[in-house]
């Protein structure tokens, strides 16, 4: 559910976009202040709190033993879940995850899974019987726009924060992670492309495109959202923004 925005404010924001300006004075390719705090939760194996301006997302990673899927008997399991908590926005309601929460979780899941940053093959305990399951729980605490980028950043930070569980079955020296996928969401506002939309920009944007990239500039996941469309040249522009801003974001990890 979208928040209401007055038509005066909307026209103002759309007008600003045409001049290449934004409501908070940022450049089109500029993120809000980014902060990444690790190890914020003692009861999780790994955790992180990410702030993008006023947006706050916490991620906790838990490792638990579980049964492998029949088609991948030697592979660990990755489960990503996202909660849009009612305390994070007046538009979030208690209850089972809605389509926005499900989309958020699945977009983060693909960024992490497809980057192959976790070596799931190393998380096998006994073939076909027992493997380690990695649970990534995304907790949205304050919603001021761009939850996808904040959630991917927090998830990757939390995965790098994972301390091996105390267990006889854990035989690895450390949690097997490599690579750092970073998601950059570009929104289109009045035909103008910009990164890290704040909530007001997000609510009136025609469409968004999230591109997750790796260190080498390759793409590991994409997702278009919103009821608008993109021209092909805009995809090229979005990729350039994703690569450039992604490099900056990765320095925070």
């Amino acid at each position, binding site marked *: 559910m979208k928040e209401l925005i007055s038509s005066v404010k909307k026209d103002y924001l759309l007008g600003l976009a045409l001049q290449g300006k934004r409501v908070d004075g940022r450049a089109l390719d500029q993120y809000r202040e980014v902060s990444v705090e690790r190890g914020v939760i003692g009861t999780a194996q790994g955790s992180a709190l990410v702030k993008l301006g006023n947006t706050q997302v916490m991620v906790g990673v838990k490792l638990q033993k579980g049964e492998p899927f029949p088609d991948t008997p030697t592979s660990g399991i990755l489960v990503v879940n996202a909660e849009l908590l009612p305390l994070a926005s007046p538009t979030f309601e208690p209850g089972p995850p809605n*389509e926005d929460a499900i989309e958020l979780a699945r977009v983060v899941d693909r960024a992490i899974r497809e980057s192959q940053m976790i070596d799931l093959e190393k998380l096998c305990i006994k073939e076909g019987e027992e493997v380690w399951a990695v649970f990534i729980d995304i907790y949205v605490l304050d919603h001021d726009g761009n939850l996808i980028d904040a959630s991917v950043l927090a998830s990757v930070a939390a995965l790098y924060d994972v301390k091996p569980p105390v267990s006889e079955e854990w035989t690895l020296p450390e949690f097997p992670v490599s690579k750092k996928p970073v998601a950059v969401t570009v929104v289109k506002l009045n035909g103008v492309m910009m990164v890290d939309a704040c909530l007001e920009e997000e609510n009136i944007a025609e469409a968004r495109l999230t591109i997750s990239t790796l260190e080498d500039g390759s793409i*590991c996941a994409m997702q*278009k959202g919103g009821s608008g469309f993109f021209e*092909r040249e805009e*995809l090229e522009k979005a990729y350039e923004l994703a690569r450039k801003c992604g490099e900056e974001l990765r320095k925070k990890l």
Partner: protein
Amino acid sequence: METGKPERLIVNGRRLDGRRPDELRPLRIKAGVLKRADGSAYIELGKNKILAAVYGPKEMHPRHLQQSDVAVLRCRYNMAPFSVEERKRPGPDRRSMEISKVIREALEPVLFLHLYPRAVIDVFIEILQADAGTRTAGITAASVALADAGIPMRDLVTGVSAGKVDGTVVLDLMKEEDQWGEADMPVAVMPRKKRITLLQMDGNFTPEEFRQALDLAFKGIDLIYEAQKEALREKYLPSLEEEK
């Protein structure tokens, strides 16, 4: 380790079903296949068999879901329990809820929803038999069904997937390629102005492969677009000619 994976998915430039990298699977589209729906379409793409139906525009009930200035578009993508190898538990799951959302967002740009305030347009997509590429084939069928329902549209929406298999960029992945390939990228486009209304991707693409995959997708979309228009002509041309 994954079980059952063939050593190579492309041998001598031919894919498992004999296609070249830039070829679509056999395609058949038929408009107006259901009696009760306001509009409907059936698509077969390779082994995929998909039905789409449109109901509306009609008054939205319950009324608190009405939008005072526009019609609401609702989409439901649903897989039949018998549509895949292992029986799928009936009803919505996380995957189908996400797909329903991106399909809605892929179709919205062609509709004039402000023409029908307080109304709803329902689009139902039923996957009867699945073999990869169901969301894009579903969009292709759904936009034919919307046209069949007589709903004004800026253009049709045409979907196809492109991806990477054995290091080669390919068009229209089938199940084995989706499962064992390196990348899958569903795309939907309003073909006349080449506006992209759905784009998802997972796997690994270099920027250059991404461009190649888009080129292939656009090529496939041109062919599918012709088949969509042909399906509408097949249903409506005879009655138009009678009127003359």
